């Protein structure tokens, strides 16, 4: 069984950290990591990894065999060719089995809210000069909050809907 420790974008804004282990009840284990597949909000399917992911990486050891049960790797998303701040990354971890059973697939979502942080702080500075709080400012914060709640509750379709709304409504705008 795959246990995801961490899948998130690091503070530098472009490095995706993937840390996971396979909990095996037998020794030697019969399941190993197979690959990492990354989909975006445009290619996401709620049935599993799509056939058109933006990134695929086979997890193999130095002898090119699937024998790893622990991974902790950094993926440079700037090489993937998408705008990191405007993309939801659905990171799938697939396992492979030495027996006849089919290995499971687990996934988590990574997003970068760095742009939001910067614009929110600049908006807070502006608030000092204004008598009232702009509605756009509140609207954006509530949208971000809605996205985070959807991710926590694993309502990914709704999270994508809010994510697109957030970037369509506030594209090239400050919060």
């Amino acid at each position, binding site marked *: 069984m795959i246990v995801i420790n961490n899948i998130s974008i*690091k503070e530098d804004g472009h490095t995706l950290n993937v840390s996971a282990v396979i909990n095996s009840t037998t020794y030697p284990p019969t399941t190993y990591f197979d690959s990492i597949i990354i989909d975006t909000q445009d290619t996401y399917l709620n049935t599993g990894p799509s056939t058109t992911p933006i990134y695929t990486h086979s997890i193999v050891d130095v002898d090119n065999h699937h024998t790893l049960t622990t991974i902790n790797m950094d993926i440079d998303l700037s090489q993937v060719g998408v705008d990191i701040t405007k993309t939801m990354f659905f990171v799938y971890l697939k396992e492979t089995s030495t027996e006849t059973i089919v290995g499971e697939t687990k996934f988590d979502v*990574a997003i970068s809210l760095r742009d939001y*942080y910067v614009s929110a702080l600049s908006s807070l500075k502006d608030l*000092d000069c204004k008598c009232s709080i702009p509605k756009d400012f509140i609207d954006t914060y509530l949208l971000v909050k809605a996205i985070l709640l959807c991710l926590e509750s694993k309502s990914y379709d709704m999270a994508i809907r809010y994510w697109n709304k957030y970037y369509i409504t506030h594209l090239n705008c400050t919060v």
Partner: protein
Amino acid sequence: MNINTTINVSLQNALLNYFNTLSDIGYVEYPDVYKLIVLDMINDIISLKLTKYAFPTIVSEDDIRTITTTFYNLVNSTFLIPVPINNNGSTPTPNSYYLDLSYLYKYIAEQIVTINESINTKDEATNDKLDTAVLAINSTLTSINNTLISMNTEISNLGATDNLVIESLNNLASRIKILEFKI
């Protein structure tokens, strides 16, 4: 109590006030709710709950200053967000410093008027009164220095410098210089 705890406690109190008001009268005005939302946002930023989403793990001094200023602007601007109270019952807001300082300013101004009157009359009988006034001013200046020291301690406890406090300190320093010159 540092600024993180202050904001967190303030948010808790504000939410309590919000729901109490809703249960009592069933309505809270939008501008008040917006202020509550901004307070929630500030709390999210400084509580580092969003570091999973590439938020910086270390908030810069400039950002802390912005957050602190915004927080103290929100405090008391609506009934939902009351003035935060320390564990010892004191108020860790720049407003309290203003109150103390205004009292000291008033006291010093009275002493200066007394001195001016004494100097103008040049009556020897008032010389004693003049000495007393000078002593009182010296004692006031000492208490101002003590206030400055306690303010600095408060500022370091808050974890950030506040523009209002800095401005107040500068004003006070310039006033002390004027007073020393006059004496």
